[in-house]
């Protein structure tokens, strides 16, 4: 039996990190939105590590926040411990990571969705999706039928999920949830190309079964830097993490049982992430390494479950117990939840455009692991962009297209839709060629004006933003104008910092450009310094110190944007363009880049092919003879 359950502007399938941002953004922009979840207790779940952020991922969280998304604020509210990673390695790679209380995080997120106007939450498994003349029609397992103007697929590891623990395998979602078993078939019937990816997670163990006495302790930063530009009172560190190592015995146990791994036994067909290898993978692939590191992290403030970061595995349960117990501190460890691998269906993101809409299916969007990415933050970023774009399209507004030079979010999406993925995609700072410009400290400067135009930044937050930008500008001016006399006090500082002393007055900005000097060092001689928040001085110092590099990257960006403006018509027949190499023809036909800039980033498309495309475009526009 099916019944008409009503009309929706936007349906979001899945309420993980992608679905949450998609649903909130769409509803906040005024669209009647519903989010579907297989289990209401899975909303905002963190089925893998109990942390948000990390290298490049911290950038993503700050960018989502700068645009008006939710992840950063909720992470701040649930922080157990926080660290700014890579201090000392340079501002481009500073990244925030927080251990969070995963239960609290899920509760807070669910509550935010519940409170959001225009947003409905439904516990239901979507079993069918089809296109009617006018709309998308979703059917749930219980027979409810919804007519939707747009649908966002944010199915995570639920879609066709299958669990592997040793030789045991069964259909299942993450964290013991039911999988979505029928939706994948419906998507295939639509003509969407799906593939199998896999990921894995380590065991959760009981805190009191661990001997911490001999383990290295890892503390949080004091004071903590919050994720959100909105958070007024920074969170506090409430707990510590610990570090341990595997050893020769661990290796021995794992290698003795490697034939019982579903991956090495050939049972898993899905492609796993290169950056997130299981411990058995690490031991086999890097056999020369005598030991591997692991982190012991708390799952929450009100639970004794501990997460063993670095130790994901799909070995049988008995082998897991045996090898975990070879590790120092874990000799008597009690496993509460076993490690497992999960295989799932996802799409080939080359089918998507930069708004994350399917090129062939207007009104249908993908986000998160469904698009071949991995990670909560990558998912949330795409969810936000898909939700915003689905809404903007219904509202008849211009789409939100973030290019590579705007953000890590733009880089992530551009990578997905132009390069495709061969394993689950993780964000890294090395993926951004513009990383000296795309820093976590200036995410608001880069993106909050965009969030404001979208209508997702409140007046109060906008006022705060403008004040901060004004303070930055004023401080840069002050630094450029303030001349410090060549006093003994100044020269003492310069000599102590191993940089050359001065004999004449010197501008504050000039001193700050020296790598050896910081605002902090110069405080005693900088008498006119205003009372601004710490982050103002940090941003200004970075802007001054890296000025030359930033200028050059801005030139690169201008060049990149020039090529992005050379649009390629969506219906180009690449097989008919003389001069394109065969591989380029195939790749271009498959990826269908929106512009020359994107075309140039496709692997298999050479600069020579780009020259041919440019000549072809010029000829087509009447600046020469046609090429074919």
């Amino acid at each position, binding site marked *: 039996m099916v019944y008409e359950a009503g009309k929706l502007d936007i349906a979001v399938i899945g309420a993980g990190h992608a679905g949450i941002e998609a649903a909130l953004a769409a509803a906040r922009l005024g669209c009647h939105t519903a989010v579907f979840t297989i289990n209401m207790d899975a909303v905002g779940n963190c089925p893998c*590590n109990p942390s948000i952020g990390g*290298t*490049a991922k911290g950038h993503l969280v700050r960018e989502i926040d700068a645009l008006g998304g939710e992840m950063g604020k909720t992470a701040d509210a649930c922080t157990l411990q926080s660290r700014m*990673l*890579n201090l*000392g*390695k*340079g*501002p*481009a*790679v500073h990244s925030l990571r927080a251990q969070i209380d995963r239960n609290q995080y899920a509760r807070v997120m669910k509550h935010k969705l519940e409170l959001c106007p225009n947003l409905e939450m439904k516990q239901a498994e979507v079993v069918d999706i089809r296109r009617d003349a006018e709309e998308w029609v979703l059917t749930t397992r219980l027979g409810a039928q919804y007519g939707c103007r747009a649908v966002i697929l944010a199915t995570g590891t639920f879609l066709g999920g299958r669990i592997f623990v040793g030789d045991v395998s069964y259909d299942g979602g993450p964290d013991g949830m039911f999988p979505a078993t029928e939706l994948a078939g419906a998507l295939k019937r639509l003509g969407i190309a799906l593939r199998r990816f896999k990921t894995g997670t380590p065991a959760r163990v009981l805190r009191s079964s661990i001997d911490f006495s001999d383990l290295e302790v890892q503390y949080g930063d004091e004071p903590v830097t919050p994720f959100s530009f909105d958070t007024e009172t920074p969170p506090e560190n409430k707990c510590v993490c610990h570090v341990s190592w595997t050893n020769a015995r661990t290796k021995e146990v794992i290698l003795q049982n490697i034939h019982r791994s579903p991956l090495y036994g050939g049972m898993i067909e899905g492609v796993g*992430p*290169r*950056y*997130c*290898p299981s411990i058995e993978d*690490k031991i086999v*692939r*890097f056999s020369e*390494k005598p*030991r*591997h*590191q692991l*982190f012991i992290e708390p799952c929450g403030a009100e639970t004794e479950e501990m997460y063993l*970061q*670095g130790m*994901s595995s799909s070995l049988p349960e008995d082998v897991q117990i045996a090898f975990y117990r070879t590790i120092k501190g874990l000799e008597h460890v009690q496993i509460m939840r076993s490690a497992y691998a999960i295989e799932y269906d996802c799409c080939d993101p080359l089918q998507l455009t930069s708004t994350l809409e399917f090129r062939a299916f207007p009104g249908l969007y993908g986000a998160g692991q469904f698009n071949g990415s991995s990670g909560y933050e990558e998912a949330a970023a795409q969810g936000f962009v898909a939700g915003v774009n689905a809404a903007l399209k219904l509202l008849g507004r211009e789409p939100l297209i973030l290019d590579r030079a705007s953000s890590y979010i733009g880089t992530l999406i551009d990578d997905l839709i132009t*390069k495709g993925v061969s394993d689950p995609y993780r964000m*890294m*700072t*090395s*993926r951004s*060629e513009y*990383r*000296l410009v795309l820093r976590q400290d200036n995410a608001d400067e880069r993106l909050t004006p965009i969030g404001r135009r979208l209508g997702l930044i409140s007046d109060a937050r906008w006022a705060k933003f403008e004040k901060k930008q004004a303070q930055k500008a004023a401080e840069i001016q002050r630094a450029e104008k303030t001349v410090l006399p060549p006093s003994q006090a100044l020269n003492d500082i310069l000599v102590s910092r191993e940089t050359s002393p001065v004999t004449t007055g010197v501008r504050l900005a000039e001193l700050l450009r020296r*790598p*050896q000097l910081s605002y902090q060092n110069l405080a005693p001689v900088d008498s006119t310094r205003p009372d601004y928040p710490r982050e103002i001085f940090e941003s200004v110092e970075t802007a001054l*110190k*890296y000025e030359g*590099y930033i200028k050059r*990257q801005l030139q690169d960006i201008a060049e990149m944007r020039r090529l992005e403006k050379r649009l390629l018509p969506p219906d180009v027949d690449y097989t008919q363009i*003389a*001069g*394109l*190499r*065969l591989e380029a023809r195939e790749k271009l036909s498959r990826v269908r880049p929106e512009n020359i800039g994107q075309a*140039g*980033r*496709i*692997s298999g*498309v*050479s*600069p*020579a092919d780009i*020259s*041919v495309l440019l*000549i072809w475009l010029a000829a087509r526009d009447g600046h020469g*003879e046609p*090429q074919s």
Partner: protein
Amino acid sequence: MKTIAAISTAAAPGGIGVIRISGDAARAVGDRVFRAVSGEALRDAAGYTCRFGYVADESGARLDECIATVFAAPKSFTGEDVVELSCHGGLFILKSVLQAVFAAGAAPAAPGEFTRRAFLNGKMDLAQAEAVMGLISAQGREAMKAAQAGHDGALSRRIATIRNDLTDIGAHLAAWADYPDDDIPQVNETMLKDRLSAGRRSLEALLDSFDGGRVLREGVETVIAGKPNAGKSTLMNLLAGCERSIVTELAGTTRDVVEETVLLGDIPLRLADTAGIRETEDRVEKIGVQIALDRVKTAQFVLAVFDASEALNDDDRAMIEAIGDTPCVAVVNKSDLPAAIDMAEIEAHFAQVVTISALSGDGLSALAEAAAQVLRTAALNPNDGILYTERQRADVKAALDCLTEAQDALQGGMTWDAVTVSLEGAVAALNELTGERVSDAVVDRVFEKFCVGK
């Protein structure tokens, strides 16, 4: 596209000269100028066949005997229908035939246009196209060898070696930045500096190869200077005589000066306005001392001729001063006469001094070696892969600048995120050169070489 034609062999007197016609109307144009002995028309000829006959102009006047070869699209150099007319050579005859071909409907090919069409029709990649351009304009044997090495990928291999090492460093730095909590070998600053320096040295050597490579390929604008009776015209005759076959006379369409190319060792010397020198020594004097000195200043290469049998005079010294930093070999002539010249003074001014007898030819090979030193072609092994084009040079220069920047950042105490950006800039520039895009090379290498991840 228009059907185009040009003389596609070197514009030099030789055994056979070839006129290439390419385009949809190539056979039709061919049929208008070519009469096969067998009476067959080129339009009916299969690809890769040839016909013997003769070429005639519009009036039907027979110009030369000829073999016409037909290549059918797309299996030709340009990917289009091509007809090649092989005539008996001789610039005058070839030019007459070409005029007839134009009159029959072909348009003159722009420089490099055959190659451009080959490239556009997918017959070659950019690096190959550029190597072929180099091949076409190769004026000396070495340039020919170097261009062939480019076609075979010697340059690409040389670049790949440098790029591979830079990618390794980049991957290590990326792993270090992206996996701060992972157990990654420390990046050692000394090692980093050493490898950046090594990368720079390799790139600098490549850049040197460009200057030398260009000399071999394009020749070098050369002035033979010297006071009256030093032996300029004798030297000129010696050079011109030693390999008569490649002396060319291009009554240029774009320039009025008569230019003559002679080979000195492997280096083509382009002697500007040599007519003046060769006619009579008197006429050179009429040019006036000032003009002669000006030409020395603007030349790419100077052969400064001194008379060994006389002491240096004011004319000699004025010339030495005018030469300044211009690449130059001092040629002390008339070694067959008793020496009166102060060799020490000459050696004080010139790094390369050669004693010859232009009359007998003694010392000519030493002169060639000295020129190779000065023009940096001596150390060049064309089989190693050298840079041919401005584009390639610009890419290598960009990569070198990036590495210099990375080194400066490291030296100046900047954080390593700045170093990595410069380093990746260098890798990107080298990829641009070989026409590859491996933008994810660094990321891929991280996962290949380091055990990272939770």
